[in-house]
């Protein structure tokens, strides 16, 4: 069995002579731009090139941050946003994944929903805010609605395509191995479409933050979006910047978590790892 020896179990250990230096070098490369930007920004503020009411210095933003941290408004707003985001996303996944499978698998259902989706899908999430407030009033519900809607569209589209374009050869293999037709969906279609479903979930999560921020700006009295909006009204540009950074951190963190989950679930898949670092 000569070809069996092609890959022996376990890869050989990597030589690590320059490992430490490489890590430091890598760190420098990653850190250089943010440090430069922040430094330049601080310097620009200190020297008076950047007007304080337009863009406060990073240190001023840090002060604003510690202020809201101490008086508890940060925790309240963060918690409100996280709850809305998680529940909205969960609702979106619970509805859009089954619906996407249905539309992907049943051609008649796909035709049946085609025109409706064609018209609804391009409406940006921001255009839904008025009707969300009309239906759900100010507060959690309309925010959750917008988060769910923002997440649902990419989840639906990607799930649908994943199921629709399942390579027929897996179905043929499964059928000749004795799979009953009604078992195909669960045993074959779903796992084959899983990479696409996860792509949808990740894009949906990214998209949902836009929905959350808009909803909180206009339709709520708490959350990071409200924080940003309120800061503008109060002329507190330091808090405005703090709020924006928070949204960035939340989005980035949730994206990383999603990437980890997807990497674990799809460890059999070839493109696991990706290019995101």
């Amino acid at each position, binding site marked *: 069995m000569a070809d*069996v020896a092609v890959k022996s179990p376990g890869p050989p250990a990597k030589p690590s002579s320059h490992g430490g230096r490489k890590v430091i070098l890598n760190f420098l490369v990653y850190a250089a731009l943010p440090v430069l930007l922040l430094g330049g920004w601080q310097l620009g503020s200190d020297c008076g090139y950047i007007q304080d009411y337009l863009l406060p210095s990073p240190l001023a933003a840090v002060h604003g941050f510690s202020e809201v941290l101490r008086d508890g408004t940060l925790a309240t707003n963060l918690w409100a946003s996280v709850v809305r985001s998680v529940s909205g996303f969960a609702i979106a996944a619970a509805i859009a994944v089954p619906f996407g499978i249905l539309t992907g698998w049943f051609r008649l259902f796909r035709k049946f929903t085609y025109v409706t989706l064609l018209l609804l899908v391009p409406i940006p999430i921001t255009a839904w805010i008025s009707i969300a407030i009309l239906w759900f009033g100010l507060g959690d519900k309309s925010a959750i609605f917008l988060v769910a809607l923002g997440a649902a569209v990419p989840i639906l589209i990607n799930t649908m395509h994943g199921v629709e374009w399942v390579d027929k050869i897996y179905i*043929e293999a499964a059928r000749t191995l004795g799979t009953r037709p009604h078992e195909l969906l669960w045993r074959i279609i779903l796992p084959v479409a899983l990479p696409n479903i996860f792509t949808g979930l990740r894009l949906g999560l990214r998209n949902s933050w836009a929905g959350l921020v808009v909803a909180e700006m206009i339709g709520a009295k708490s959350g990071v979006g409200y924080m940003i909006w309120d800061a503008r009204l109060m002329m507190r540009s330091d808090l405005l910047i703090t709020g924006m950074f928070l949204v960035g951190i939340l989005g980035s963190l949730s994206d990383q978590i999603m990437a980890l989950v997807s990497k674990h679930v799809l460890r059999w898949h070839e493109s696991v790892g990706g290019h995101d670092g």
Partner: protein
Amino acid sequence: MAEPKIVAHGITKYFGVGAGAVKALEPFDLFVNTGEFICILGPSGCGKSTFLRMVAGLIEPSTGSLFMDGQPIAGPHRERGLVFQEYALFPWKTVLGNVMYGPLVQRLGRRKAHDIATEQINRVGLKGFESRFPRELSGGMKQRVGIARVLANQPEVLLMDEPFGALDSITRGIMQQDLLKLWLEERKTVLFVTHSVEEAIYLADRIVVMSPRPGRIVSIIAVEPARPRNLLSSECIALRAQLTRLVEEQVVSASSRPMNMPAYAD
């Protein structure tokens, strides 16, 4: 060998309808005996896969009938296992998971399925690779999994569609030897598609030579020498010359046909 295992009676296959229909298979008659190793030899596009997929039950003949053990073939069944040139392993399952798939679908239970799969994995020489995913395997190993997965279902007929067609010639030779060994242990009925004359001579009891599209049977040739065969023996060399001539004649006569006169359906 009283009753043939597989009987193909006057089957044809058209793809599409009307004037644009493509005739893939001419009336095709074949008797395959129980325990026989049949190689179907023909140029690519002549309808070999089409025939095999009809026997598998994945597609239906346009006309004619197909029987196994005297019963019409209606749809796929685990008693006719198909090995694909592209392997078609389930990428989300490990080697063990792939081979256990058939027994699990048959509801034999996890423990039984595990035992069967382990045995077949050992038989094809993949012991120690049970927890690997297909993407971690070489082509030859993938096809070993493909064969083990089908054998775990204990099919009565093994259908193999150019199973070694994507492998390098060294791996291919080893795979042929190992397949022959497996076959000699159980003597299942095998329909093996290939376009390699040598492969057919090495493996087959009988070789079915097909014409280019629309495929029809040009000749059926019995291979007499005892196994394992030495392809350099005078008998095999003579057979090889005969088959090569036969195949080439077919291809030449097809390519001398005017290009704008494809074999459309009437």
